[in-house]
């Protein structure tokens, strides 16, 4: 990357290195959110609709896990994936997949906790209807997830916000390798440490713009969806 470029030049000119960094950032964050959705939404629904001993504690634990410190998750994943760690033979440390794993761990509790709340609230509304229509449990979960989909998108956006903004975990497990595991946030950390503050600020502006764009897209999709879904 041309370190002499000013923030403005960098934002205006389409630098191929910058594009690669942006794409990697999106790839990592969105993959983590996807994994979190696959695990978190069914898990949230399950906790919302079932009653078991210790359920209150499970909910408190799930909510607390939303505040997992990224640096601790990074360290744990690092120790797990290190060649000297239990999963060292996978050779996954210092790769984009390692970053996805770390971020999925951070994002899943957020999605699960918010999904549980959404689905539980919906269930309060639907409970009598389900009972009257004699709807089976699988179908219940399906209906609740589908009818709550717009609120669940907000849960996913919260997860995306967390992963796109995060630097503590991915810099440990990714290693901030140029052209391989360098993302927007780790590039900003690096340029700051080089004293290249204009470039760091420029990258920061790009990152924030991307996060706004993704949220705008989600908002637009929701609005369109609501219009057609009635």
């Amino acid at each position, binding site marked *: 990357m041309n370190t002499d470029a000013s923030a403005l030049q960098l934002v205006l000119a389409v630098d191929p290195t910058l594009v690669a960094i942006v794409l990697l950032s999106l*790839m990592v964050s969105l*993959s983590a959110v996807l994994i979190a959705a696959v695990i978190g939404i069914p898990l949230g629904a399950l906790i919302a609709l079932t009653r078991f001993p210790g359920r209150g504690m499970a909910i408190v634990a799930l909510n607390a896990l939303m505040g997992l410190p990224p640096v601790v998750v990074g360290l744990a994943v690092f120790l797990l994936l290190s060649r000297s760690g239990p999963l060292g033979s996978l050779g*996954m440390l*210092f790769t984009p997949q390692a970053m996805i794993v770390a971020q999925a761990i951070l994002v899943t509790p957020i999605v699960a906790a918010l999904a549980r709340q959404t689905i539980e609230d919906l269930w309060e509304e639907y409970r009598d209807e389900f009972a009257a229509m004699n709807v089976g449990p699988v179908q219940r979960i399906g209906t609740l997830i589908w009818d709550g989909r717009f609120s669940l998108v907000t849960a996913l956006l919260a997860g995306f916000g967390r992963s796109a903004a995060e630097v503590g975990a991915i810099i440990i497990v990714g290693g901030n390798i140029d052209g*391989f*595991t360098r993302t927007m946030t780790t590039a900003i950390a690096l340029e700051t*440490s080089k004293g290249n503050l204009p470039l760091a600020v420029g990258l920061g502006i790009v990152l924030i713009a991307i996060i706004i764009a993704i949220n705008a897209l989600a908002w637009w999709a929701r609005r369109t969806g609501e219009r057609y879904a009635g």
Partner: protein
Amino acid sequence: MIIRRILIATALCLSLFSPQRSIAQDKSIVVASTTSTQDSGLFEYLLPIFTKKTGITVKVIAQGTGQALDTGRRGDADVVFVHAKSAEEQFLSEGQSLKRYPVMYNDFVLIGPKSDPAKIGGTSDIAAALKSIMAKGAPFISRGDRSGTHIAELMLWKQAGIDIEKEKNAWYKSIGQGMGAALNTAQASSAYVLSDRGTWLNFKNKNDLQIGVQGDKRMFNQYGVMLVNPDKHPNVKKDLGQQFIDWLVSVEGQKVIGDYKINGEPLFYPNANDSGA
């Protein structure tokens, strides 16, 4: 249905970045190195030349020397490229590597604010300067991260006859971060800081910082490179790693290192021929 579709999409996403794919596709090694080689811009200049010649991609993890050696100890890097001879010799004696190659040197410089609160201006005696900083209680930033520069800093205090562990006070701030971050902190708090010359020359946020002391022979800074012992860590790519080391110490690699300049000033001086370095 939806869940199945999502699962398939996830699998596709992950498979794009599966390690097998990247191994099959390219020859690459992981080098654990120091923040100074990265923050000085050396790797950005040198690695494309090496990759063009050999087709080997070098993935650099920039850490402090102590942490870089630990990365090697765990087998997470193929090559370590660091600057603290005592720590490197320790690494060798543990059998973590079989041979250390001297590569290049530059020197440390004591950086301080232009206002020079410790009145060290003009001296080239690092011990006198450190004594003066302590006597005046002038703010001093320490890396505090077991990096090569941190190890050198501790040695310089010791050589000045100061037991820094005992003497340090509010004026001595250990920040536990890389060279660039330490320079930023010094800049923001008008403090003194020890830096390698390469990072200092490439540093963009100097403002009212300047070199306070340079040229003392105790401020010598030697870099060495080692292949992580493949007998201890079978995953080490010994052939590719050795190829990188051989190139660094070759006539060509040494010339490339010497040619790296900022504003006409060299940042590193190749000295692979000096077997005592």
